[in-house]
């Protein structure tokens, strides 16, 4: 909306006009020149004094965006016995504690940004090939996000004696973005509407041990 532009007011001696007076007080209007004080319900920058601006102290906290973060300081070890033999089996992927978040979105967000940092090392042996890889997946509201899938190779690379090669730790600093509007033809992201949502990073492994060090998992949303 912009400046209020009232219609011509009655001059002295003119007959009173109740309709005109009522419309000056309240008349919804979407034009660029609101003809009534109804514009007070949705004042904008156009109503500010010339040359004046508003600073952020006028904005209520979380009005321009909000977010949540979770992290973990300890190591988390996963042993192959807890996984089924085949990653195609139901529940084969286990959520990594501290690397996921449930959050309430207070409105249909224009943009929701997820970022996460996690370090994974596998005690599997390279000679065993892909059977010792660690597979990771990101799930958002139960849906698999394929673009975020990664693999972690075995860290044991010296056959005699077995030796952990620390160069083979893997740091995954991923991201995903959702929007209430289209992000373009090359995006498979879906909109996130007002309400509860859940996103988590998970893994499947047949290696002897997999160690995870979670740095953080963040979600940031904007109206």
């Amino acid at each position, binding site marked *: 909306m912009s400046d*209020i532009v*009232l219609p011509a*007011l*009655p*001059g*002295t*001696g003119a007959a*009173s006009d109740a309709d005109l007076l009522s419309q000056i007080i309240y008349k919804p209007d979407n034009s660029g020149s609101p003809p009534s*004080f109804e*514009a*007070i319900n949705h*004042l904008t*920058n156009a*109503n*500010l*004094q*010339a040359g004046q*601006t*508003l600073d952020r*102290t*006028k*904005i*209520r*906290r979380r*009005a*321009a*965006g909000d977010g949540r973060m979770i992290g973990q300081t300890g190591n988390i070890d996963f042993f192959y016995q807890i996984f089924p033999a085949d990653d195609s089996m139901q529940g084969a992927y286990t959520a990594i504690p501290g690397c996921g978040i449930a959050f309430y979105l207070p409105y249909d967000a*224009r*943009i929701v*940004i997820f*970022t996460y940092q996690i370090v994974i090392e596998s005690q599997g042996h*390279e*000679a065993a090939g892909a059977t010792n890889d660690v597979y990771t997946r990101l799930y958002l509201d139960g849906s698999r996000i*394929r*673009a*975020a*899938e*990664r*693999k972690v*190779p075995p860290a044991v*690379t*010296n*056959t005699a004696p077995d030796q952990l*090669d620390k160069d*083979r730790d*893997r740091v995954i*600093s*991923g*991201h995903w*973005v959702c929007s209430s*509007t289209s*992000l*373009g*033809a*090359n*995006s*498979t*992201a879906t909109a996130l509407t007002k309400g509860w949502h859940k996103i988590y990073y998970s893994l499947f492994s047949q290696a002897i041990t997999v160690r995870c060090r979670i740095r953080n998992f963040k979600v940031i949303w*904007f*109206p």
Partner: protein
Amino acid sequence: MAYTPVEDGDSFTAASVTSRLTALRDDANDINPKGIEDKALRKEHCLSPILQAGAADISPGAVHSYTFANDQYPGYNIGSPGWKLINTNGDPGGGTPLQADFTAVDLTDTKVIGVLVLFNIQVNTIVDALAVATSREFDALFAIQFQDNAGTWHHLPESETYISSETWVNGGVTTQARMEKDVPIRLLITQTNYKGSIKSVRAMISVNDGTAGWAAHNVRVQLQHGNISAIALRGSLQ
């Protein structure tokens, strides 16, 4: 706002009504920020901090490959040739690209902070495609480029990122190891990068071979899953 009430005995004429309404109108059209309480503005009063956004993601079943022969790294801050748009077909091109398009934003506009770019790609392997050479000096390089409103692509040298190949000893024999590495790039494109409007960002790959003394060989980088996002951020309430 200031309003003068009508007192008993005042004459209530057209002029007095007009005067009062005009004064209210002028006040509403001329608000001083000091008259607005701190934290008075809610989400409904504010424009979205997001001006525009675009994203792209790929997750082909098979890897897509890029070779030193076709995409030789041209050197720092040389945008072309030598860089290839990452896409699901790899070197031949024509597949789904890691290119995020959005409605153009003018980076010189005072309300625009810039365009935040987030990029991730999974590198599966960096090896000699001819299986002749084995080295830790094969490199996969990545960079972000943006397109201006006229359609010209611009290279961002500060986005150039690389990872090198790995080897392991298998029964006394040095062997090229699989990579399985995630490569992230984060940056903010501002008017210091370009003074004008931009409408797309894309993820590029190039291949470097730092080895010497080997017979003819051809370094090949295999990629699989990845995504790129571009978010134009508002920096002003205006």
